[in-house]
């Protein structure tokens, strides 16, 4: 049952996820970015596990375990391997400066808080706070995707966005397990597809900078 302590812990873990999203925003090295993403997934896993305990919903433990196994271990390791095989250890350039990105991120967090607290005023406070945090994580993930030029950066942005969705799903009571598992596996499949595409891009253009794709289409920027 929702006691004050369990609410606070859930709140803290979800807030931690938002904080790690901010950390993702200012990573300018690929390895750092991937490690931070692993941390992101770890916090997500802890948050979902806490929800499982607080809601007394054992199937959420499975979700937490899936998050821990795939998102915190398998995917980061695979990404590291990809980077080694592609041989890109150089800095990632941000399109806009880090300061501006962080400011925008704060604005987004404020926006999602305002929206969620208003439209879900009569919902369960645990779910409501969770949803607000989850929306913030989703928006920050999108922001990450928008501000990166490197394809790996966009993949990480996409994955962190998906973590936000899982957080929202865990907060909603009665979400069937099959939905969560299928979401988890679809992300895995998406990751595989993106990985393959990355190598294809690399084979063809000798880089994973997506500017090469634009040049290939003959576009001006």
């Amino acid at each position, binding site marked *: 049952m929702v006691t004050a302590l369990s609410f606070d812990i859930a709140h803290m873990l979800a807030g931690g996820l938002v904080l790690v999203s901010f950390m993702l925003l200012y990573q300018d090295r690929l390895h750092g970015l991937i490690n931070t993403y692993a941390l992101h997934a770890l916090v997500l896993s802890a948050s979902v596990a806490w929800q499982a305990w607080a809601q007394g919903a054992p199937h959420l433990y499975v979700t937490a375990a899936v998050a821990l196994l795939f998102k915190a271990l398998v995917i980061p390791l695979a990404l590291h391997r990809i980077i080694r095989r592609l041989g890109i250890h150089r800095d990632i350039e941000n399109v806009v400066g880090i300061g501006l990105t962080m400011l925008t991120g704060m604005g987004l967090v404020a926006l999602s808080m305002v929206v969620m607290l208003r439209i879900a005023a009569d919902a369960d406070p645990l779910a409501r706070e969770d949803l607000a945090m989850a929306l913030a994580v989703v928006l920050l993930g*999108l922001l990450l995707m928008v501000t990166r*030029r490197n394809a790996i950066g966009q993949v990480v942005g996409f994955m962190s966005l998906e973590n936000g969705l899982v957080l929202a799903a865990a907060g909603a009571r009665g979400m069937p397990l099959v939905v969560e598992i299928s979401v988890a596996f679809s992300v895995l499949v998406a990751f595989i597809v993106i990985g393959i595409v990355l190598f294809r891009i690399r084979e063809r253009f000798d880089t994973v900078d997506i500017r090469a794709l634009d040049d290939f289409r003959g576009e001006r920027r």
Partner: protein
Amino acid sequence: MQATATLLTVVSALLAVAVPAVALSRRPWAGTLVYGVSLAASLAGLGVALAALLAGAGSELTLPLGLPWIGARFRIDALSAFFLAVVNLGGAAASLYGLGYGRHEEAPHRVLPFYPVFLAGMNLVVLADDAFTFLVSWEFMSLASWALVLAHHREAANRQAATVYLVMAGFGTMALLLAFGLLAGTGGEYGFSAIREAVRDPAVSSLALVLALVGAGSKAGLAPLHVWLPLAHPAAPSHVSALMSGVMTKVAVYGFVRIVFDLIGEPAWWSAILLLALGGGTAVLGILHALMERDLKRLLAYSTIENIGIVFACLGLALAFRADGMGWAAALALTAALFHVLNHSLFKSLLFFGAGAVLTATGGRDMERLGGLIHRMPATALFFLAGSIAISALPPFNGFISEWLAFQAILQSPELGGWGLKIVVPAVGGMLALAAALAAACFVRAFGVSFLGRPRTPEAGTAREADRFSLAAMGSLALLCLAAGTLPGFVIDALAPVTRLLVGGAMPLQADRPWLSIVPIAESRSSYNGLLVFAFIVLSASLSAFAVHRLASSRLRRAPAWDCGFPVAGAATQYSAGGFAQPFRRIFGTTVFAAREEVTMPPPGDMRPARLSLAIHDPVWERAYLPLARAVDALAGRLNRLQFLTIRRYLTLVFLFLVALLLVLALWT
């Protein structure tokens, strides 16, 4: 067997013959097969529909097709039985005509597969008893007729006509889709029975009525949604033109009557005024266009617009009377509308068949290149004359009856409640009277220029009479026109169940009147006896013919025809179609169509001929449609750039849009 099941069998027979028609359409006997089966099926459908109408037995059937929780529902009541009779009568006549006319078709493989499908689609629309089946059948009908319009696609004009038609048909179906969506409400119950029972907001009903008017009106050719009709109807082969003009527009009228009189319930007070004004305006605009037109088939298409205007004005009148609780007057107006629906399907099919015969015989539709056809094609000329008299609303043919009933209904308008209607109805009556007079002038011109005088071209001079199937189709329609004109009481009595269903009243029973006269309200008001008028016309005409032959000098005297003191032999000196239209063009055309005549007279000594150039503008097309098309084009050009953005730009757009939506949400609530 149940009527609905029989008619669905008829429809499946039509659909079944379309399948082998695809493969066999190039064989010489394929036309006979397709038109023969269509003729038999239409006659069977006509019989079933008439039996259902006269016996008053409704029937229902639900097939497990379409949306899973509804199925495809079909139902015959008095209204659909009447329209099924109209559809199948027109279908039978067109199929009979097609048996002969189809032999001259240069692209039978583009006509034969679609023709029975078109007939089946029109039957299905009238049979449908849920919105889903109705809309699917409606699209079926539209697309089949679109394919037929495109049959002679090598002519650029036909391709343009087909494009305009497709756009307008899609637009109309969208309006109907939205109308049914509004009527079905959030529950999504699409069966007509549930829609009929539902209670809804008056604003929703009004919006649905306007959408139905746009959707059905665009198919029927109601101004200002008529622009596709004079392009598309003449582009199809003539028997299909007859079907589109004579029958498909009636299916559109059916859709409107079904929605507005049956499904919506009590519509808003202004709907009657809207219908009356649109109907009157459409009638006048359509017939003015027809008067200016040189192309025989386009002239007929414009005249269809006029007749649709008359029908819609009568429907508006019926709505007004029903809203005032004057059931007898509403029944009179609705009977006039439905009678005119039947009449127009008869004589417009007949006239299109005649135009098709002329087209086959001379290879052209331009009236300025015809003339003197009465000598080469006497039977066609006679039937075309019968159709012209009927459409000009002259006794003893049927057109007179329905227009007379319409004016009888208009004369009841002083008893209406609202002052708006008291003022609008007589004005619309004036417009209908003007349209009727102009229609007479228009068909005097059409018949006189095409069939009388001397041939203007060698093609017209060597024309050959139409084949016997075509003549049989035209002759039977002409006979039906005469029969409906001389014995209108039977038709009025047959329409009584329809009016009782829709407005809760009926005209007095006509069958027991002495001498087969018709009495719309009571003897003291007015009555008409078609048979007596016919007998008088026949008698006086025979007497005068007899007198002329007996009493006139028997000496043979030969004199040049059309020789007004100007004995030039050239056929070009005859009164031309353009010349006939000139007074109307000067009176109406300068304001309505911005018609400008310009005479270029070369100075003395210059050998060039003098020239008269004429410019006519369609106000609706140039003021409404062209600016709209340009705006859509410009917008599409702008949006086209969105196709060529970078991946990151797309992501940014999605992101910004999401943030904007969230901001709206945050500020709004």
